[in-house]
């Protein structure tokens, strides 16, 4: 089985091209460079209403992305939605951090915004954010406005 050198070199280049493409895709196109392989920690937050929040939604602090929503479920005892947040351990949160669900732009998707508190203790894996503000649901707001208008 003789192979010409050209064939071998071309196959080498081919494999190299593939590897470069995968690396470029991972670093330039996807958010692998932000965080993913790094360690994370999970905390939970309970909301009365999460509106249109989805898993993998952004979690931000003062507009800076610090993590993602990793899991959403309904907690029957509390009668609330349980949202698990996966956060970058670079960012420490005080125990009285407040979590709110906001909408990006008028029609954008929903995300969780955290506002830092004043306590010295920090949240670690498994802890719960107690101060939460549910999502604004457009119909509720309109309903309230209507009630206000008609009651005058």
């Amino acid at each position, binding site marked *: *089985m003789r*192979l010409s050198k050209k*064939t*071998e070199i*071309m*196959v080498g*280049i*081919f*494999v190299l*091209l*593939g590897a470069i*493409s*995968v690396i*470029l*895709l*991972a670093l*330039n*196109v*996807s*958010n*692998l*460079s*932000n965080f*993913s392989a790094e360690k994370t920690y999970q905390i939970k937050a309970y909301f009365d209403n999460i509106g249109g929040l989805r898993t*993998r939604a*952004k979690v931000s602090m003062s507009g800076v*992305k610090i993590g993602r929503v990793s899991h959403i479920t309904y907690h029957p005892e509390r009668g609330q939605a349980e949202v698990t947040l996966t956060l970058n351990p670079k960012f420490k949160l005080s125990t009285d951090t407040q979590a709110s669900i906001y909408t990006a732009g008028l029609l954008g998707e929903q995300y969780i915004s955290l506002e830092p508190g004043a306590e010295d203790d920090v949240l670690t894996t498994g802890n719960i954010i107690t101060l939460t503000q549910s999502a604004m649901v457009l119909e509720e707001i309109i309903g309230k406005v209507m009630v206000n208008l008609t009651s005058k």
Partner: protein
Amino acid sequence: MILDWLQNMGKSSLNFFRKIGQFSLFLFHLLSGLNYLFFRPRLLIKEIYSVGVLSLLIIIFSGLFVGMVLSLLGYVTLVDFGAEGSLGVLVSLSLVRELGPVLTALLFSGRAGSALTAEIGLMKATEQLASMEMMAVDPMKRIIAPRFIAGIFSLPILTAIFILVGIYSSFLVGSLWLGVDEGSFWSQMQSKVEFQHDLVNGFIKSFVFGIVVTGIAVFQGYTATPTSAGVSEATTRSVVHSALAILGLDFILTSIMFGL
């Protein structure tokens, strides 16, 4: 009338199951001979050259044009909402999740799969496979296995190249021609495209397509009727079955991976 119809139904479904059974036996036989390749890596290199390297040109050009077209198409829709900054997201997500794996696999089946079927079918028709058997060389190991593995190995690489070329060409059209802001193109793309969810799943798809397309191609070649008409039929079947399998599997995989 109805009886005839029922009989035809029964016959073709029995045929279908027989084909599936034949195919799994074939795959089993194929997989049991793979250790042979560890001793003969050169066989694999030769096949990667003819299956992968020679498909590079068509993949790069297709990626180029698909990327540019996506850019134009996406811009028209997005600019109405003032959201042309999301062009990168639109292009990259469609390429990474769907168009990259699917189009590359379709092109691959037309470029490399059909060639594999015709080559193996002709080797069968000219008794080359039988003569190999009589020389105590198992054609399944010597001929089929290297081609099969080369296909599975090459398709994900080609897919990665296709996606990358597509994204960069759409970026060029978007930023140079349509005036989309360079920063928002990349930053929005990076915040939306996830490595695990999007890229890894895209490559899983491409890997599955590689198994299916090359598997069908070598199977059709190996089971072709050893005449010129038989080989041409097998080649057609190889491309048609591959295309149907790719699109059908893509739906199933997409609904598992990205459904909800």
